[in-house]
């Protein structure tokens, strides 16, 4: 495993760049646990101080240190993304594998529903959801709502792989070796599905963080939870750009862009590395 990592790092520029970016973001997350004061507290430092030695990313108009604020915000945003990705992976794996392995009518019905969810614009529906929930809106509810909208694209990918695997001769060989369906799905087919699950997880984390930021900035989430989105929301509320407190906006934007590109590069490079074909090429076929 370590060798794989080393090889990837050495021969795959995307992986190297992605790893470095994600490591930077992760170190911010780790730093959040060493914050000298609770992240919600305001007026703990002098307001509107530009970046300097004492406050590397400056302070904001609410008297918070932008750096420490940022560490907590990125931690929450990342956690949110991972939660949504995890939940929606369960749905997409279940739908994709069942649809592909069963085939026939089940497949047609599931894919029809799937395509519908792919097409439906999520933002107006999430907005409507916020509108109906208002103060009841919470981190968990939003994650659940987004997970229930974020699965279809990936389910379709997983299904197409599962479908092609079903018709491969080695599947029949496994059946006639007496293996159970569970064994075939987990031991024979999963290695082919995993690369997609990995790479779509990264992309799904990106998608959900992006949407969370958007909803937060407009104020359509619980704005008291510090996330990248709510950070920008408060900066906008204080018209930070107009007031020249640019670091308040630039810091979260730069961090979240770093996260996006880092995760995306990892997804691209992992996809290539775990792709059975390139795996076979490495094995020396």
């Amino acid at each position: 495993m370590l060798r794989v990592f080393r090889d990837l790092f050495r021969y795959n520029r995307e992986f190297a760049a992605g790893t470095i970016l994600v490591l930077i973001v992760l170190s911010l997350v780790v730093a959040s646990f060493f914050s000298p004061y609770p992240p919600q507290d305001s007026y703990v430092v002098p307001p509107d101080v530009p970046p300097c030695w004492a406050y590397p990313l400056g302070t904001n108009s609410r008297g918070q240190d932008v750096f420490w604020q940022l560490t907590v915000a990125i931690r929450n945003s990342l956690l949110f993304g991972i939660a949504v990705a995890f939940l929606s992976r369960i749905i997409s794996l279940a739908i994709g594998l069942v649809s592909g392995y069963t085939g026939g009518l089940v497949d047609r019905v599931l894919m029809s529903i799937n395509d519908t969810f792919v097409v439906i614009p999520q933002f107006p529906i999430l907005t409507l959801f916020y509108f109906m929930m208002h103060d009841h809106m919470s981190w968990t509810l939003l994650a659940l709502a987004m997970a229930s909208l974020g699965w279809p694209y990936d389910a379709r990918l997983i299904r197409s792989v599962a479908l092609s695997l079903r018709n491969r001769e080695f599947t029949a060989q496994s059946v006639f070796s007496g293996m159970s369906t569970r064994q075939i799905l987990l031991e024979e087919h999963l290695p082919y599905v995993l690369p997609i699950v990995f790479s779509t997880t990264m992309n799904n984390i990106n998608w959900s963080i992006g949407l969370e930021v958007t909803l937060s900035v407009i104020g359509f989430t619980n704005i008291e939870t510090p996330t990248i989105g709510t950070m920008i929301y408060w900066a906008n509320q204080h018209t930070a750009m107009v007031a020249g407190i640019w670091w308040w906006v630039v810091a979260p934007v730069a961090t979240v862009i770093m996260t996006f590109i880092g995760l995306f590069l990892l997804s691209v490079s992992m996809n290539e590395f775990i792709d059975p074909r390139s795996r076979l090429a490495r094995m020396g076929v």
Partner: protein
Amino acid sequence: MDVALSVRDLRAYYLTSHFGVEREVRAVDDITLSVEKKEIYGIAGESSCGKSTFIRTIAAAIRPPLRVLGGSIRYSFLDRDLYDLDERALTEMRWKHLSCILQGSMNVLNPVRRVRESFKDFASPHMGLARSVFFDAVKAHLNRLRLSPTVLSAFPHELSGGMRQRVAIALATVCRPEFIIADEPTTALDVVVQKDVLALILEMQREIGSSMIFVTHDLTVHANISNRLGIMYAGRLVEEGSTRDILRDPMHPYTRHLIASLPRIGDVTPKKGLSGAPPSLADPPSGCRFHPRCPLAMDICRQAHPELTALAPGRRVACYAVSPLVQPAHEAAAARKATKADKSAAFLQ
């Protein structure tokens, strides 16, 4: 006899590097042969013996990781080596002088273009005819191949497999090229259709008077279509002669085995398979590449690979056990043309 194509010491390898693992697959190693005018030269061999790579190389259709590392390829209609042509001359030569019929007629025609457009793209630039005259000529040609002109308005998926292969043959012969390269053109076809298509190829070749290299693993097809036959094993030519001589009196132990093991209707004598398996071209055995499987292997076979030696007029064999005339080969100067090969590689990406 005039020579239509002369290949000397041809060497083409796949050079790959993946995650730092460098590999060299010696698909075509030191092949020398010539094809006479108006003859069908058959090449036989098992999968991954290098016959497809050979075809790709003489058709100037290589792209990385395949590289031509040495040797020369001369066609009678060219005033210089194939790999000395610039892009423009190469494009001009294609189809007018040298055309191809490939395996898998299913996929050789652009699925979103009507057959008419394919004829226009492929043949029109070389025939230099006005549009209406051009299509009259095409229709006349289709007629000769017993194809209705309605195929021109069809999309490839609207044709049956046999029809598609006929259209492909029409496409390859409409410019009346001097040389045709056929790569397993009947392999995916059913036997009834296969016979038809072979007859058509033979008929066109005779009518146009072109020379042809015909590649297939199927010796029964060669028996029916090829004038001469070259047998390839693990990237090398091991035997060559007239098809009749080879089928009647094979000399190389590999050829002998291939022919002896052919099942025939009416013949129930036990046939044997060879032990072992064809070697990996990434790591071929030393000396004669057949020696690990050869029942006649001697010490020298392990040390140096035998020169393809003329033992009778038109008959060449590379096996020490066949005749004392066969001597170790002189290694041809390697990498003679690496730079030229790179140039052509850049052209075809």
